[in-house]
């Protein structure tokens, strides 16, 4: 058994706010293996974003430990271990799509001669070949989000952390992007951490589904997804799919019952 790519042990994070301390993460332990596609699901405020941000070294835990590829999150970031995709595409309007994808390459100091190859490759991966010279406002919301995924992939990180990347998109576009994301994951063997509010999305995409619950934010269930890796969109109507979706729903309900 190989070492986990992301290893969280008894993570605690308390934010000190004006209204008193907010316990965003409590005793969170989780191992994510190489090539896993792990979805995080749970009601608003349960700490999904916070967990991803701790892994990405955007937030410091107040207790416990995380390691990414056996390093601290900061070291992992410097080693370009992960790409982070935010809910909002956040493309720069003054740069073309190519220019946007080039941005992390410039910042990380990739040699100029390599830029073109990197950009071409990730544009292919997200199916945006031919749109490189366009400006963000010339693209639909779904295409912009694909461009932002391409940007996160541009520097060959092995881990992709995605915080509700499709949350602002309509259902049809979302289905399409889910399909593409699976394809991309299959081709690239990345390890993916994916936050969502949608049960079908979580079940369709992941190898494992982490169910969380708020106040304090904690993991209440981890569900292994037994669906095959090959997943056409209509797998969502099969009994196996509905069975897993049901288990996720139960897990969410159980987490809530705790509360009241």
């Amino acid at each position, binding site marked *: 058994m190989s070492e986990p790519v992301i290893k969280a042990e008894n993570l605690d994070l308390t934010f000190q706010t004006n209204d008193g301390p907010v316990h965003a993460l409590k005793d969170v332990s989780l191992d994510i293996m190489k090539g896993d596609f792990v979805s995080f699901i749970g009601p608003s405020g349960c700490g999904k974003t916070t967990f991803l941000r701790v892994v990405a070294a*955007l937030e410091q835990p107040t207790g416990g430990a995380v390691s990414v590829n056996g390093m601290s999150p900061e070291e992992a970031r410097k080693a370009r271990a992960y790409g982070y995709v935010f809910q909002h595409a956040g493309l720069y309007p*003054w740069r073309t799509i190519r220019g946007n994808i080039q941005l992390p390459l410039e910042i990380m100091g990739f040699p100029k001669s390599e830029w073109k190859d990197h950009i071409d490759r990730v544009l292919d991966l997200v199916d945006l070949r031919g749109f490189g010279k366009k400006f963000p406002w010339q693209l639909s919301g779904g295409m912009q989000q694909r461009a932002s995924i391409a940007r996160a992939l541009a520097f060959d990180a092995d881990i992709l952390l995605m915080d509700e990347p499709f949350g602002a998109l309509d259902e049809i576009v979302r289905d399409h992007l889910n399909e593409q994301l699976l394809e991309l994951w299959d081709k690239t063997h990345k390890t993916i951490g994916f936050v969502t509010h949608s049960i079908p999305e979580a079940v369709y995409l992941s190898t494992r589904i982490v169910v969380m619950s708020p106040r304090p934010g904690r993991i209440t269930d981890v569900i292994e997804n037994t669906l095959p890796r090959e997943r056409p969109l209509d797998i969502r109507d099969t009994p196996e799919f509905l069975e897993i979706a049901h288990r996720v729903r139960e897990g969410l309900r159980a987490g809530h019952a705790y509360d009241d």
Partner: protein
Amino acid sequence: MKSALSILTVIAALIGLWYAACVPMNIHEAAIQAQRAGQEVTPAEAPERRKMGRIALAVKNPGLWRTVYEQDRPQLPAPHQVGAELWKTTWGMVERGRAFSKRSLILHGWITLSATLLGFAFGTLLGIVLAVSIVHSRAMDMSVMPWIIASQTVPILAIAPMIVVVLASLSVDDLIAKGVISMYLSFFPVVVGMVKGLRSPDAMQMDQMKTWSASRAQTFWKLRLPSSAPYLFASLKVGVAASLIGAVVAELSLSQDGGLGARLLAGSYYGQTVQIWSALLGAATLAAVLVWAIGLAQGMTLRRMGFQR
């Protein structure tokens, strides 16, 4: 088309108002002149006329209305008088091949413009440098910002002569002295706008930079600076107008060099109201052209940068 019509309507209304205002403003002088020419004026005594007020006097003497527009030194010159003076001192001078003579508004406009642009260039530079240091250093933010704000509460009219005297004693060139006062007024909007612009990237954009381990310099050049462009242009428009005011005020103290401010001063010295008004309108036109030019650059740049479509 429709907006052109409404602009013309507003201008026509303003000119109409101006003409109307000329009647009460110039009625006393009109009465005096009419009496000298042997005409009847009611009431005949000047002190009585003063007591009854301008409007009442105008109503009593409709025969005087025409002459209020034909005086040499009216209290309020009529639009066509100012227009004629403007024409005479600009295009009229060009026609006579004396565009840069002392009596030409083109020469004086040019003198004001050069001080304005000099001060504006340095003001913009100073504003940007201050904004960058304020955004990057908390100490600068805490210590310098209050002084910058305090600097703008000092009435420029009061300190301009002092600055001029000090700089003259250091034998600084007059143009630079005027530029300093322009700079003093124009750097402020640039600082305020640039600080806001450089801070305009949101938390997500800053986090994104962090996930790429971007340095402060990289964040500045690739994110903060481009993000500030819309704010910069908005402040430049305010800044250039302020710079022009600074130049005119400076010219009141350095009137021997000419300029629109010097024309204003000379006009008020000799009661040449027509000259005052034409210098005033000249300055307003200059300001409008400068603001318009920056607006043009703004439109082009921001469209190209994708901020506007």
